[in-house]
């Protein structure tokens, strides 16, 4: 079995990104990059799958230097093969472009299972994996909290607002991972050090800039006011319960 895991580096979530001088871009150059937390679940799921069923697991990441960082983080967790997919120079990619680039490479790799985090916590695009499924003609399940493979068929528990859908599908398939599916392993230090020296294959996406041109324009980037509007009702103050009811109604039924 061949498994592909899609990984991405995201700016350290603890730090607030800054807005560039033009007001339409986020400056991330000064930030530390870490492996997207949702991708850690995907890597762990792939490693567990490899352990129980035996598989060749390849991690792929699209981009420049920061993509190599994501691959090294995946190596540190135990992945053995890493592919850096290089986008055309200068292309600013949306979810659409990323999926098109990755599809080029994955078509050749033809994995039986593609795993990815349910979204990357920088752009919160939440679409690349599903798009890939369509480009490659694979089935897909999103935000999966439980995954099992038996007799060549996947059983995936997909979370949704009112509970869980238990889906069963044949391979090949694309699965995106949600928190709770597993507890990603903590890499050992020798593994982290080894990961620094491991070889990364490089592939070009081989698509023209024009094909990847974003279909939208960023008009403005802003930072919302961070302060929470704290509202306290002292004992026997009127309106507290009523206020809460409104809040609960809104929050619990969306």
């Amino acid at each position, binding site marked *: 079995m061949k498994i592909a895991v899609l990984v991405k580096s995201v700016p350290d979530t603890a730090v607030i990104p800054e807005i560039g001088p033009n007001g339409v871009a986020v400056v991330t150059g000064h930030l530390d990059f870490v492996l997207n937390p949702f991708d850690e679940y995907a890597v762990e799921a792939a490693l567990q799958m490899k352990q129980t069923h035996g598989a060749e697991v390849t991690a792929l990441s699209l981009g420049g230097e920061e993509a190599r960082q994501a691959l090294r983080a995946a190596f540190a967790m135990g992945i053995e093969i890493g592919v850096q997919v290089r986008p055309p120079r200068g292309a600013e990619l949306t979810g659409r472009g990323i999926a098109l680039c990755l599809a080029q490479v994955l078509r050749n790799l033809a994995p039986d299972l593609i795993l990815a985090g349910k979204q990357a916590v920088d752009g919160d695009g939440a679409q690349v994996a599903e798009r890939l499924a369509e480009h490659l003609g694979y089935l897909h399940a999103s935000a999966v909290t439980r995954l099992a493979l038996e007799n060549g068929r996947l059983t995936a528990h997909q979370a949704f607002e009112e509970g869980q859908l238990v889906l069963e599908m044949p391979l090949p398939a694309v699965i995106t991972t949600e928190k709770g599916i597993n507890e990603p392993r903590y890499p050992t230090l020798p593994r982290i*050090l080894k990961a620094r020296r491991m070889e990364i294959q490089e592939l070009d996406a081989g698509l023209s800039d024009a094909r990847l041109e974003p279909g939208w324009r960023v008009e403005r980037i802003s930072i919302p006011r961070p302060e929470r509007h704290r509202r306290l009702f002292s004992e026997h103050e009127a309106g507290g319960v009523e206020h809460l009811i409104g809040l609960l109604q809104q929050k619990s039924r969306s």
Partner: protein
Amino acid sequence: MEVTRPLGTYSHLYWLMYLLTTAAAASLAWGVWSRVRRWRLGQGRIRDRLDRRWSRTLELALDLASHRRFRRAPHPWIFHALLVWGCGIFLLGTVCVMLQEHFRLPTFMGVWYLLLSLTLDLFAALVLGALAWAAWRRFVRRPEELTRSPGDGMLLLFFAAVVISGLLLEGVRMARQEDPWPLWSPVGHWISGGLSGFGMDALTSAHQGLWWGHLLLALGFLAAIPYTRLFHLFAAPAALFFNDRHASQVLIPLDFSDEETAAFGVGRIEDFHWKRLLDADACTHCGRCQVQCPAWDSGKPLSPKEVGAVLSSCLADHDRDRRTGQTGDRAASPAPLIGAVIREEALWACTTCRACEVYCPVGIEHVPRFIDMRRFLVLTEARFPAELQTTFRALERHGNPWGIARRESDATLKLPTPADEPRAEILLWPGCSGFFDPRYRQVIAALAGLLKQAGIRFAVPGEEVVCCGDGARRLGNEYLFQDLARRNIAVLKGIGIHRIVTPCPHCLNTLSNEYPQFGGHFQVLHHSVLLQNLMVEKRLPRPEPGKAPAAFHDPCYLARYAGEMAAPRELLRAVTDSPVEIPRHGEESFCCGGGGGRIWLEEDAGQSVAARRIQEIVDSSLVNIVTACPFCLTMLSDGAKRRGADIQISDLAEILAQNIKTSGKESSHEQHGNGGHPGVRHRPHRQEERASGDRNPG
């Protein structure tokens, strides 16, 4: 007439005596050498512990002469001191005889002889008494912590036999031939009195037998040292001599530059530093560490004593295997230490409080060896309690152990940053608790208020600083620690204020003692010291002390790591008329259970450490506990809450600020105020007070 006693009765057989002595010395040397050889299996160089040679020697002499390391209640120490001193005197006497007899030096003559003779006799009697006491303690009273083995009784008897044979020999000598100075050998004289009925022949043969008997026993004793528990006669002074007082404060950094390294930390016995191997052999299993250990006390599967014992036997096994040629197999699959020899749970139970080290009479560095093994588990195996992963990841991603995003909380500290206060003379380092723990932020607010009141220009670092790394380092995650430390050092150097004050003793230790390892040299003060200075300099008003008794709970990292016990007590005296002490206090304080990263671990086994401390506080009928560490504040408050005990736990800064405020008000509003409502009160209701504080409904 020369003042001495007849020597050389058997001089024609001295060749035999020296032959036997040489054999005993060879046995001693071989035994010691084989132990030294196995310590050398460890890491590091002998030079590591050969700095300050004179002060090391002096300290060792002081340790032996004064037994200062033994003298901690409730353990008896005098009998051991008598045995040590006795051995010293006996050795001195023997050497004097030898010098007199063979080198004709006047070392056994005159007044000196008389004094020596008297001292020898007296100590012989005292040592016999001490041996009896030791035997009684070991076999009759049987303290739980003391490891007993059948050989112990034999050794005590052996020792007694050496002394008794010497005394009998003296008695027979004095019975055979009248001694002109009998009162200078009182015990011998007393024995000779009982021998008056024997004829000269009988006495002569008895003398001959006793002389050789005493010689053989004494030499046998020497020869047996390396092969019995007596080895501590050699190993304990060695451990004391090579002791590094700062071994726990300043941990040995790991080097991560070699990317080929396959293992970090200590996974096999020979991965330890050689001093830790020496420590394992120096342990006499007296159990003082175990009695004081908060982990053992609260029912965790950790006894520092047992760890020493198993390491020692593991070292012996390993050494034997090596010499009998099983090296090849072992090298292929290295003897695992953790799990097989030492339980993982034991390693995680240590709070790094250093009570064991303070109580250890032979200078064993207990804490670092736990951390060495934790390093192996965390770095090499990634094997640790599940909840730690949350903490490690939070530290990696958010720079604080709780994983709370910076920006939510910073605003509420509302204190000047270095940019706001470019002329700041002091940097206030709040620590993670100061930034994120709503309870502890009140301490920071109080401290900041006091600094302002004293007219000190200070600044608080912003979001760019991260956790100091104490927890990460002591949990064994050295890699994470070094990353955090380097980040902070770069930021602190950028800020450029080299005087730092912190209310957290853990930050204090790490910033002042460990950051220099990575090029960060800062002058760091604990807030208790700064506040005390400000009070002495009268930059802070002296508050009217309150009436209610209050006690200071010494944080481990303040009392035992930083040695600071005076300043907090000075401050306590300023806020209460009746400062009291918890039974275990000062350097002998009892841990809250939060150190060494324990605050982020579940306490599954036994009772909680905090509960034990709260028990002690309740038993002492104390209500007001003042402390000076965020972990102590959290752990003890939780412990008190869990027990439902009405104990008020606060930080020094809070109490001081509150009392100064109250006193100030009273002196301005009612000129003749008697300080009736100081901050420390009977049964205070802090919760309600706090509510009206910084919270602003709506």
